[in-house]
């Protein structure tokens, strides 16, 4: 009896492990450390961009004043040759790192996304190219915050 039970349990365990692996593999690509950072410096460190160089080739298009902090449209283009990824950091948000996009197979280093802003803040776009980071900063004024209830 015991041997059969053990075998069944082992089988169930192996099956569960097999089923859960793909999900875990997907989830593992979320940079928990960087997204959990509470300061812009830690967020940048988390994505390896502490030494980002300010660059005019990274372009942020966004409103100067956002009336509604819950939906602030931000458009980012990188003209740095060989840009592989773009990250968005909002300095004064509770968790400054908003998103990071990796581009491959002909995808252009461009993204448009709506973000939440708790208050008026600098917004940074950080592009990664050839192992180096390049950043642009734009201050966006928020009249009604988008993080509270």
């Amino acid at each position, binding site marked *: 009896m015991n041997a059969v039970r053990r075998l069944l349990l082992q089988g169930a365990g192996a099956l569960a492990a097999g089923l859960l692996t793909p999900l875990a593999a997907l989830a593992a*690509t979320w940079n928990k450390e960087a997204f959990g950072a509470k300061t812009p410096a830690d967020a940048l460190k988390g994505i390896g961009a502490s030494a980002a160089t300010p660059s005019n080739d990274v372009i942020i298009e966004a409103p100067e004043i956002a009336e509604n902090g819950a939906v602030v449209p931000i458009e980012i283009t990188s003209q740095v040759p060989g840009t592989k990824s773009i990250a968005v950091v909002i300095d004064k948000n509770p*968790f400054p790192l908003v998103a990071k*996009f990796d581009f491959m197979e*002909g995808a252009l280093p461009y993204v448009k996304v709506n*973000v*939440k802003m708790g208050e008026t803040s600098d917004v940074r776009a950080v592009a990664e190219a050839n192992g180096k980071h390049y950043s642009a900063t734009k201050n966006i004024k928020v009249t009604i915050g988008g993080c*509270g209830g």
Partner: protein
Amino acid sequence: MPGPMKMRATNQGGVTEIRVLMAHPMETGQRKVNGKPVPAHFIQNLTVKLNGKTVVEGQTSQAVSRNPVFTFRVKGGAKGDKVEVSWLDNEGETNKTEATVA
């Protein structure tokens, strides 16, 4: 609750533009209802594929607006190509949608 997605992909001047909407609450975990915090519930990963090849992989936080809309651009692609976008949130929920480049 997360809901359906909408997507439009168009090719103009050799560039395919993909615009995708995901119905999702994107709860920050900071909001309170009747004094009780609403747990964080947000999309963490998204993948854009053109003809089965991954072109964009995104990681997102709770600071992306509710019912997120993203626009991406891919050099190349042609009318009739298949675009697929999928997402995965912090509770393990997932969804995907497909469209044909117009």
